[in-house]
């Protein structure tokens, strides 16, 4: 019998990819297409959803062709996607109504402040686990319905559909406007809308009312792993076995299946997710409460999420903005020209501070600057900023969950930086472990889909596919760790209140 594969479709912020995995969880082929980033106004970021669907419809067959396989050798499709990016489309024609509004878009800034009102940004946190920010979908849907003439009436008549990207893709994979298409989402993506009740895992009337969103436009919420539908387009006859948001997919791909297991994906920004089991942990320290995954009719698993806005992008700034290095990897070489940071700390609050501070008026600082500081020390401080931000998030999570982290699984481009990985192990005082497959987002989607169709028997089977490729053990003197962290916290204090109220547009 010919080898069988699972196809992961990763619909990301910059590109759409299809990766095929074999039974041992090994990557066998990759096809990728980038799509345009549209910036119609300052702060606005949009994608053309039709372009994205065309790209997906191309990369899937391309990945299969690459290894000379037949479409029938694909046993399931798993979808993972950029989270919170929101789209409305016409149910009958399948035409998007305007572009998809991307998670980075800040057009709902004012709206979010208005919605928060006197009760503050956490007024819906009990229901949905999230604070009011421009990140999430609900304010965006309200904005779209309010700013397109006649759209709200059409939406109430059931002529308009809403979806995040996995919903749009599944609707198109199942025929689009042909009439048989499935309009569905999964619990992880729904948990990022601010419209889903995090306990009942269903759309919440109070939230729908607060955001003025008609129920008729919303998709059906399904488990993350479970057959959503059978594709009729691109790969006719192949079952769609999973959909998960990208960071949740990475958690799944890292096989963090038990409470207390955590992963951090280090990229432009970084995302740390801690599995909290079937318990919903409400953060008192600025973490998000989110659904980790749900497998079939089993109870959902939850996670705490801490996001760091500026990590890899600080290295990019050091390269492109300051011209200190030629390639991102050279920062390690430069940092190794010195023994330590020389007393310098860089807090990259480029557009405020994210978790756990959430201070939008903060701006970055270089603290501890003396004549002794060389570019080598600054290179260290750039890398260490990612380490300290990780420690802040882990501290907050430990406090919220009462579970002390024992190891951190890492993935993403920055894991090639040994100095940084060692620094993170030293600061957190836990093992830092890199898996053999670095494409954990796609792997997670493949795992969840393969599980749904019986390609893999159970979670234990998936765990046995996970192998350690590298590991960093902590060996920093506790006294030094404490001093370094105290210095960092003092530097963070100095970023606060930089943008004064009178500076903001009136």
């Amino acid at each position, binding site marked *: 019998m010919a080898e069988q594969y699972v196809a992961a479709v990763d619909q990301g912020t910059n590109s759409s990819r299809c990766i095929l995995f074999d039974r041992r969880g090994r990557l066998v082929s990759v096809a990728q297409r980038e799509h345009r980033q549209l910036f119609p106004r300052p702060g606005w970021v949009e994608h053309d959803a039709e372009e994205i669907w065309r790209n997906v419809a191309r990369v899937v067959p391309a990945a299969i062709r690459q290894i000379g396989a037949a479409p029938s050798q694909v046993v399931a499709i798993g979808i993972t996607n950029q989270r919170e990016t929101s789209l409305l489309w016409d149910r009958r024609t399948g035409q998007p109504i305007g572009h998809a509004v991307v998670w980075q878009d800040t057009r709902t800034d004012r709206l979010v402040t208005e919605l928060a009102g006197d009760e503050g940004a956490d007024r819906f946190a009990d229901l949905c686990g999230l604070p009011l920010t421009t990140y999430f979908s609900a304010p965006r849907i309200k904005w779209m319905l309010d700013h397109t003439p006649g759209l709200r009436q059409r939406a109430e008549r059931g002529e308009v559909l809403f979806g995040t990207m996995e919903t749009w893709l599944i609707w198109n994979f199942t025929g689009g406007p042909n009439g048989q298409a499935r309009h569905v989402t999964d619990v992880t993506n729904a948990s990022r809308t601010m419209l889903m009740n995090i306990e009942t895992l269903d759309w919440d009337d109070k939230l729908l009312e607060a955001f003025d969103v008609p129920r008729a436009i919303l998709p059906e919420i399904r488990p993350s792993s479970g057959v959503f539908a059978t594709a009729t387009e691109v790969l006719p006859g192949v079952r769609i076995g999973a959909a998960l948001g990208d960071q949740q997919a990475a958690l799944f791909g890292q096989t963090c299946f038990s409470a207390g297991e955590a992963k951090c994906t280090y990229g432009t920004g970084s995302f740390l997710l801690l599995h909290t089991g079937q318990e919903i942990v409400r953060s008192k320290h600025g973490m998000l409460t989110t659904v980790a995954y749900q497998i079939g009719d089993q109870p959902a698993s939850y996670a705490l999420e801490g996001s760091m806005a500026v990590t890899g992008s600080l290295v990019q700034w050091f390269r492109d903005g300051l011209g200190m290095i030629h*390639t991102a990897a050279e*920062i390690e*070489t430069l940092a190794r020209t010195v023994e330590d940071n020389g007393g310098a700390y860089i807090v990259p609050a480029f557009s405020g501070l994210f978790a756990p501070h959430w201070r939008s008026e903060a701006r970055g600082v270089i603290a501890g600057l003396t004549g002794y500081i060389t570019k080598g020390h600054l290179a260290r401080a750039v890398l260490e900023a990612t380490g300290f931000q990780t420690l802040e998030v882990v501290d907050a999570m430990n406090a919220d969950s009462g579970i002390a982290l024992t190891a951190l699984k890492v993935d993403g481009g920055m894991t090639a930086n040994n100095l940084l990985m060692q620094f993170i192990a030293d600061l957190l005082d836990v093992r830092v472990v890199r898996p053999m497959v670095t494409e954990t987002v796609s792997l997670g989607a493949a795992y969840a889909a393969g599980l749904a169709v019986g390609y893999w028997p159970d979670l234990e089977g998936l765990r046995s596919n996970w192998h*350690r*490729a*590298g590991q960093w053990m902590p060996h920093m003197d506790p006294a030094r760790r404490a001093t370094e962290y105290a210095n960092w916290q003092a530097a963070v204090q100095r970023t606060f209140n930089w943008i004064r109220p009178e500076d903001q547009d009136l």
Partner: protein
Amino acid sequence: MPGTVQSIERAAAVLRLLAAAPDGLGVADLGNALGLAKTTVHGILRTLHQVGFVEQDHSGAHYHLSDAFGRLGESYLDPNELRSRAINWADSLASRSGEVVRVGRLVEGKVEVVHHVFRPDDSDQDLDVGTTLPPHATALGKAVLAYDTSARPRSLEAYTTRTITDPVQLGEELATVRSRGWATEFEEHTVELASIAAPIRGLGGLVVGAVGLAGRIERICDSRLRHRGDLVTMVRATADAIARDLRDDT
């Protein structure tokens, strides 16, 4: 006697002009000075940029000599850059072969480990990035030593009874490596272990390092104690893939 190469003469002229222009020069400046068409100058500049001899300013309009041009004797590829280019391919080699994978480069007569991927059996292993290996006693070392024009190790220390300690014999071994394009080692560093490695060629064919795997003899060699052909193929394909990645956009 073969003739001279015109494009190298032109490139040398471009370098001389750039060295004399602290503020840099544009394509048109160089074309006018040398009496060459803009497309010709542009091609020369693009190549010199790719090999790291010239840089562009922020606007992209002016070219000047790079710092690296003044330090040609130093390694042209940053070891951390080599690791970040190699990491996915090295992971894939470890996962397909089931063995330890290392990427190394020659530094002052020794092989420095630039990247290390654990054997995928989840046993206790320590990262040895930054440590050095003896070049004459490992496949990784032979794969870089064979293409090095300066540093022959002076004293050939014996690690086992099989270590090559005779310079003449080592010279023959390295000639074999060059003729077939890959290197092997059999109990020459550690008893019961063997290894296979292949050179990674950057732009112009320059060997920037090597990638290889190591493991127990019974897994690396066949029943006649020859290094397994399928593993050799995998190692060579990995070295080629890393090299392609390096050449595509340096």
